[in-house]
């Protein structure tokens, strides 16, 4: 229930074995890595080089 309350529909995709702590670490880490990649590739593709 805690996980459900914290993550709403996303928790439906998640196995019930995962507690809130596991979810926090997973979401934060995956989020950070994905955000870093988006930042890097957005900068690369927005840069026009001769």
């Amino acid at each position, binding site marked *: 229930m805690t996980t459900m309350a914290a993550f709403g529909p996303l928790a439906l995709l*998640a*196995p019930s074995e995962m507690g809130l702590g*596991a979810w926090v*670490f997973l979401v934060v*880490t995956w989020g950070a890595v994905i955000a870093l990649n988006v930042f*890097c590739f957005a*900068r690369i593709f927005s840069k026009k080089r001769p």
Partner: protein
Amino acid sequence: MNSAPQGREAWGSRIGLILAAAGNAIGIGNLLRFPGQAGQNGGGAFLIPYLLCLVLLGLPMMWVAWTIGRHGGKFGHGTTPGMFDRMWRSPAAKYVGAVGIALPMIFVLYYTYIEAWCLAYAWFSFKGDFVGSAERTVDLRNYLLEFQGDAPTANYFPGLGTAFTFLAITIAVNVVVLWRGVSRGIEALAKVAIPLLFLFCVILAVRVFTLPEGTGRGTVGEGLAFLWTPDFSKLGDFGVWLAAAGQIFFTLSIGFGSIECYASYVREEDDIALTGLTTAATNEFVEIVFGSAIAIPAAAAFFGAESIADIAGSGSFNIGMVSMPEILRAYPGLKFFGTIWFLLLFFAAFTSSVAVAQPVMAFLQDEAKWKRSSAAIAVGLLWILGSSFVAFGLRHGAFDEMDFWAGQMGLVIFSLLEVCIFIFAFKMGRGWEELHRGADIRVPRFFYGVVKYVTPVLLLAILGGWTYVDAYKGQKLDPQPRIKYGVVGEEKLPGLFEFGRPVGTGEQKGEAKAVEDGIKGAVRGAKRDLEARITLRVDGSGEIAVDRVLGNEELLAVLDPMRASRWLRSAVGLSYEIQHRPAATPAPIEFVVAARYTAPMIWITRGLMAAFLVGTMIFIGVLWGRRSGAADSGH
């Protein structure tokens, strides 16, 4: 991005460079080592030291390597002897740089053997070779050992012929890529291999998360919970911090000289700050997202939550080449998913091996002025000779010895030397300026202080930690005898022997350890390989009893039937599970114990590695001497 500095080769496109550099970093460790380390070292909490080390060690070293590489490339140097010589006005600089040639070459000799295993297993999966049937039981643990040439039995592979065939193919494709050059070879490979690698990861992750429920002993969720549930108590353990720093080191391929070599093909005014960051980001994506979504969740679903800690701790090869095939063969679609899994590992290794071999190519081309074809032939010959030595010497510890020096200690020593040259010889301010020449991003000033003060201290701490943990406590400097065992003719038995985790009380475990110490002592005393053959009886319920033990006298003194029986149960965790024809009781079974004397092979390996390093230094001395001689006569 297509004009070559100093008439050297150059990358064809920026995205090609990023894919190639990401391919250098992304390796087997991303998919196998990371989840194992995370699971064993605090789960989610492991990510705290891991990310901290990424910021304080990984990214700084990445930028240092890119800066050194591009700077060296400006003067026509693709490898660290020439690069360091330009940065540090000392006759010693080029000899320190020799480590950046010898280290990657030694590393690639045994890494290619692993790469060959992945290619072979992709083929075995495609053929369904290890599926097993009522007529042919396949014990995947022994199957791997026999294939590698490390087993005392020959149930599945009569010798090293199969492994050699795949090793030769692997080396051949690597050499072809290197022969074709930076743009037409390495970059072209990366443009195909990295997208394929991502595609395979997605297919396998989807497969794992859609495994039919109730077919295994656990769930995918238990695997994710194992990996991500934080255990903050582990943060007080120095070993966890050391493991995190080590993982960052391995995953970013720092200390091989390959990043520097790739960067040397970048033009002076092209960005390296964002490129370096993107390389690290892509690598981390594969490691953190896919590394945690495939092997461990699959293992938890199949083997159950109670086994997952053992599997995570069993080592990368066991996770990838024993546990994963075990899971994949239990579900439909082995030929497809198994082939994809091993091709994924193969491509991850392939893009890394060409990167690690490229410094040697570049050295021969840039410094010795050899043609690319001549350099490729020379590297290929050295490769086949060296890797053959690894394959033959594996059973006596050559592989592990090379991994310890070239794949662990050497990397941190070389990185420490490199960062010191960057800070003190080249000067930090100049290095910072060099990093930002043509940069598409401004690296936060915070990293200036990190590179100058924190990274070297961290490197020293890792060096100290590994020296204490592995060299001193783990007795890595003292050649340890290796004990390997297996069941003769097990493929024809109606059941499967399992080598589980050690069982029994503390006293029994202590006794089992005493037996192993006794075996090692006997080998040391005899100064040669010893072997014992234990005859086992298995009754209709799978109970195992030792009938008799035959073999070398020295070994029999410590491995009588009673001790052998306890050792098999407690230390080896041997059990027998009837799988087919339950009514049939197998005839007496022969269990072979091979105790190998490793000291001669380990000392030969050390000698060869040292000789290779010294030989490289002499070659450098000759080349530089010839160059200064030519300059003098020119004047």
